[in-house]
């Protein structure tokens, strides 16, 4: 049973439950009211309504899973960085579960804080930027399945859309625009420089990133996540395309803005970068979303290189997928806490002079493997 069928069952059950009420009302009330309620019942029981509601429920479930993962990620990051830095990390709030509730407490604190819009800011852009940032980041998750049975963007029989990878990376690349928008509309020199840096940085990492993805797609012969993961049944792509994995991880680190590449919010020189003027829950949304993007990055690396949900069938596929995604995230965070930040000209140099040749080399290797006929798909 896949997610669509599961949600469909729930919706059908719910609709039947509620329709009983509508039809009962249609029976007991006089005709001029009764027909109205019977009409509502007919509409609710129609195929189109049930499909739409199923999709809404599906999206809700994916978002809830993503948010719980984000909470886990923030907790994991804090605990991990705590032990790396020789202290405990969150400890007292949720003492029995290792301080897990600290994030909720912080979120509550951010909720009650005042949201300040600077007097000279461009209000529309200032308020729109978080929406675009959060929305586009949730869009990434739309096509990433946790297993063949758990994912949205499928048809009714559970077949995924064929161009899922393209959509995920397209949604991933929207964020720099919202960063630039936030930086510019804040009317602050630091945020402006931060936004500009984000745009410049995107130039350097996006091309090698997509080239490595192209190599994976080439080997798998499919643009859909299910096809790519199925192609890794015998061997993970991380082994033939090791260079590609390294380039991909570096570019994902740049994409989710963790420390060696967090130039747009370089806290030492640009106070807090493009988020300087944001306060309260808007800042909280930015922070949460950056971890959400970390989750998405880990999930993408898992699906493209680490064999997705494939593993011994002792534990469910979804858990395998999450374990791998968490591992990638931990490695990225580990790198984040132990490296200094590069300069803006150095990241361009790194992207164009080091990563791009490596990505092209990687593509060459993939093409070689493909022509040798070692990977069929």
């Amino acid at each position, binding site marked *: 049973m896949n997610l669509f069928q599961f949600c469909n069952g729930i919706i059908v059950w719910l609709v039947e439950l509620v329709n009983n009420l509508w039809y009962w009302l249609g029976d007991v009330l006089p005709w001029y009211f009764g027909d109205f309620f019977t009409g509502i019942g007919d509409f609710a029981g129609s195929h189109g309504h049930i499909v739409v509601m199923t999709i809404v429920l599906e999206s809700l479930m994916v978002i809830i899973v993503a948010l719980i993962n984000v909470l886990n990620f923030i907790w994991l990051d804090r605990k991990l960085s705590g032990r790396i830095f020789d202290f405990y990390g969150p400890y007292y709030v949720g003492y029995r579960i290792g301080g897990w509730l600290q994030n909720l407490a912080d979120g509550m604190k951010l909720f009650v804080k005042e949201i300040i819009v600077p007097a000279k800011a461009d209000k529309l852009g200032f308020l729109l930027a978080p929406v675009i940032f959060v929305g586009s980041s949730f869009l990434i998750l739309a096509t990433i399945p946790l297993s063949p049975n758990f994912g949205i963007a499928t048809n009714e029989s559970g077949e995924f859309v064929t161009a899922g990878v393209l959509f995920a990376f397209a949604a991933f690349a929207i964020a720099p625009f919202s960063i630039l928008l936030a930086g510019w509309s804040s009317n602050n020199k630091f945020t402006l420089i931060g936004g500009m840096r984000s745009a410049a940085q995107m130039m350097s990492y996006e091309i090698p990133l997509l080239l490595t993805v192209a190599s994976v797609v080439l080997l798998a012969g499919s643009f859909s996540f299910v096809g790519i993961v199925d192609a890794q049944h015998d061997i993970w792509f991380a082994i033939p395309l090791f260079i590609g994995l390294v380039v991909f991880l570096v570019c994902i680190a740049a994409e989710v803005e963790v420390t060696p590449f967090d130039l747009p919010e370089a806290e030492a020189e640009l106070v807090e970068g493009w988020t300087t003027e944001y306060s309260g829950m808007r800042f909280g949304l930015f922070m949460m979303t950056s971890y959400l993007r970390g989750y998405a990055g880990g999930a993408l690396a898992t699906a493209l290189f680490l064999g997705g949900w494939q593993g011994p069938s002792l534990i469910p596929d979804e858990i395998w997928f999450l374990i791998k995604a968490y591992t990638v995230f931990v490695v990225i965070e580990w790198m984040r806490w132990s490296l200094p*930040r590069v300069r803006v000209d150095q990241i361009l140099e790194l992207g164009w002079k080091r990563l791009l040749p490596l990505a092209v080399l990687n593509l060459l290797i993939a093409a070689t493997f493909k022509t040798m006929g070692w990977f069929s798909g």
Partner: protein
Amino acid sequence: MAEMWINMGPQHPMTHGLWNLRVKVDGETIVDAEPEVGYLHRGIEKICENRTYPQIIPLADRLCYGSSLTWSHLYCMTVEDLMGVEVPERAEYIRVVTLEMQRLASHLMWLAAYAVDLGMMAGFIYSMRDREVLVDLLQSLSGSRLTYNYPRIGGVAHDLPPNWDREALRACNYIETRLKEYEDLYEGSKIFMMRNVDVGLLTKEDALDLGVTGPPLRASGVRYDMRKDRPYSVYSDLDFEVCSRPEGDCFARYRVRIDEMWESCKIIRQAIQRMPKGKWRTVAPRNAPVGTGLGRVEDPRGEGMMYVVGDGSDKPYRLKIRSPIFITVSAAPSMLVGYKMADVVAIMGGLDMCIGECDR
């Protein structure tokens, strides 16, 4: 892109204090720079004129939060010069040990701030953690963690507690092993080297002309250290080297400070070994004679100097403080111009700004 002025400060993560660096940027490249100090001016020199001689010691501690002991020691040294007080030899050795510990603590704090300037949180936390060892030692000696109030006119406040010298030696070993470990994070890291090598060049001539002292001067290839060139206290009896490098960039400044930490460990070991027994404090006169006193020390940040004029009463007539950072910061424009915006933090972090003593 048009050029624009950016105020980095007075409240900015780069400043480590309260000062303003106005930089004119063309895109990301710095065209012009202009440091502004004076936000933290407390009028310490004037306050000193209304306080008796012992009462100024805790005030001199407040000159610099990074190395408060150096400044109270400098003050005591100056007043001893004015009053002609003989300091017992044991007190001098205790002072040297504590001063070198303070230098280690100050350099470690600088290293922490420098790491976080470059965005490396691990370096920050590790350095601050290892500084704790020294701060704990100084706390068990003097009774306070930041403003020690330890030197007195004519000695030091307390004798060494039992076993303190052994713990100090152990702390030296600990710091040395940690310094070796830091190599992985700092100069073993390619990104750190990318950010530091050939950044913020300060030529020897510029450094001499602008009156830069301390590690920035030694990193520009001038072997100038108050401890060797004009030995005070018992430094002339101790064997150590003046660390210097010829390059004059940020990495040289980093390396000079790290080398100085090794030398400090060496000095602490020697001083503890040679420490005589005896008195650690003498009675200081209440009133100073008419005359002047002068003290010059090698602060962790450069050459610190105090000049005091006594008028026969129990309060100084005038106290003048020469702060190393106030003079070093004037070299900022000549170091900054031509580099990127992100290099500002590396260059200014490499100077080890301390605004307390700069603005006084």
